[in-house]
């Protein structure tokens, strides 16, 4: 029936491109100038960090005792540190770690959150009760205390920090996904899927998860920003990424002793964090507007 009805219409109007929900959201996002600019900043930061050996003539670990604490100049746009190393190069190398940790931790968090949320929302009852009490417990412990504790106990390698951040940041995603799934699971299309013999797993993956994509994408984006701040805070406290691997956070640890002589050592690494976080937040904001079906078109 549906095919019969749809076919002649498609043939009659071949010039119309089929518009998917995500395609329309992408178009709306592109109209959001601020978010697009922010996206460019994020991409530029990521590319610069990825290709820093090509971009920068300096070795991030090569000390030069004749160039200690040089203030920003053309040769060293962000100055040098207490061992004469080029700060800009070190920041970009730190960006590799900080950005990677942020993205991977956020991915881990939304994966766990989506799985727990879908299972809890779909099965309800005991599964839901247990999962949600667990979420309550985790959310009741001040997050940074928990992070500090786990980072101390498990040690600060890049992998452990990703795991610790990921496993402490999935709770809100789980709540959002659960609520969405609960409101959807009684709807007709789920009943229809069940009536043609779809099993639970298929219903969850093919029918329920795609409908929670919008909040998950937004949560993931804002999660990257949150994870970058959390990682840099931990590393700053000496509990996150350990030297000699540099991250934006542990570059600032040095600054606490150096900033009286060389304020730029405190300014630039923090500026990198700030730029990354503010841009990612703008992108997340733009995505939220673009993905919201009740979206009101408004130029900014």
């Amino acid at each position, binding site marked *: 029936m549906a095919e019969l009805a749809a076919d002649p219409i498609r043939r009659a109007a071949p010039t119309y491109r089929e518009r998917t929900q995500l395609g329309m959201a992408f178009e709306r996002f592109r109209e959001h100038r601020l978010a697009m600019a922010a996206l460019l900043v994020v991409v530029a930061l990521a590319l610069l960090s990825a290709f820093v050996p090509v971009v920068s003539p300096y070795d991030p670990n090569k000390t030069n005792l004749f160039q200690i604490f040089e203030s920003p100049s053309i040769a060293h746009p962000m100055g040098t540190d207490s061992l004469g190393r080029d700060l800009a190069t070190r920041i970009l190398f730190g960006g590799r770690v900080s950005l990677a940790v942020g993205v991977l931790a956020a991915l881990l968090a939304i994966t766990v959150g989506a799985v727990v949320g879908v299972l809890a929302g779909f099965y309800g009852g005991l599964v839901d009760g247990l999962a949600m*009490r*667990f979420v*309550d*417990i*985790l*959310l*009741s*412990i*001040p*997050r*940074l*205390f928990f*992070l*500090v*504790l*786990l980072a*101390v*106990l*498990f040690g600060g390698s890049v992998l452990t920090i990703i795991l610790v951040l990921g496993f402490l940041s999935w709770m809100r995603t789980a709540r959002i996904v659960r609520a969405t799934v609960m409101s959807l699971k009684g709807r007709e299309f789920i009943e229809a899927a069940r009536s043609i013999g779809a099993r639970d797993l298929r219903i969850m993956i093919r029918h329920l998860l795609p409908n929670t994509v919008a909040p998950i994408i937004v949560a993931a984006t804002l999660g990257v*920003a949150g994870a970058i*701040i959390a990682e*840099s*805070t931990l590393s*700053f*406290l000496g*509990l996150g990424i350990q030297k000699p691997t540099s991250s934006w956070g542990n570059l*600032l640890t040095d*600054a*606490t002793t150096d*900033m*009286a002589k060389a*304020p730029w050592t*405190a*300014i630039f690494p*923090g500026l990198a*964090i*700030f730029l990354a*976080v*503010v841009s990612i*937040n*703008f992108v997340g904001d733009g995505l939220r507007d673009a993905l919201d079906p009740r979206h009101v078109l408004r130029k900014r």
Partner: protein
Amino acid sequence: MGRYVLRRLIQAIPLLLGITVIAFAILKVTPGGPLAAYEANPDFSFADQQRLEHALGLDQPVPVQYAQWLIRFFAGDWGYSFATSQPVLSMIGQRLPNTLWLMSTVYIVTLLIALPIGVLTAVKQYSWFDHIATGATFAAFSMPTFWLGLLLIVTFGLTFRLLPLGGMLAPGAPFTVGDLARHLILPVATISLVQVGVYVRFLRASMLETTSQDYMRTARSKGLREGVIISRHALKNAAIPFVTVAALDLPELFGGALVTEQIFGWPGMGRLFYDSALRSDYPVLMGILVIGATVVIVANLMADVIYGFLDPRIRYS
């Protein structure tokens, strides 16, 4: 109302118990531990280790250790610090007021700044004030707290030498309120600036939602003054979701205090936690985690109670 609060308090007990179980399990399961520091020491024999483990109760099975801890905890005996041998309760008791000073000042300052800005940005939507404030708040809440703290130290402490670099009171000097206030300015500014960003953003959104409601038009057509409309009709309704956010934010604020106390050398609970974590001082860590969780749970309860006060449609049963 009283019964509702009572029931919520009773419900909080299993939650708190769950938190202690998880915290205890994490501390016990993970490597390291309070004796790890000794293990590299060649003078520290196996017999010494066993003796110490026995003295600290670490040789018992973990569930037994937990049960013993829990019973003593309810009896008001929170154990003794592994590191300083002082009672945990008195260690926390010394630090808790300092953190509460810091936090309550932050809370008041934040609300005093955020409320008028949040309301004004919504009332004057798309004005230049709105654009500047919205941009500034976005920047503020993307700011890592510790970096902001460093910048403030560099600016006001090192460059202009206007304010003390850290600590709570000038060393050696007699206690004066003015001295405490001077030491409070930078740490409070650090946390508040970030927090104001969060609150203004939220207030603006919920104010915009209420100002577009029909009852606003009704209020205007009745000839009410604009001030009354904003404060009585718009703000009171916008405050309902805001109260929840402000309460749920408390744990974040606590976390912010940990970093800020570290940067400014503020002798509060956050620093105690940090030092204890580095020393694997389990009794102190457990005590602080329970207090932190209690604060969060009480804040959530308060949010629900205030919610009912602001919105009479909500009936507690």
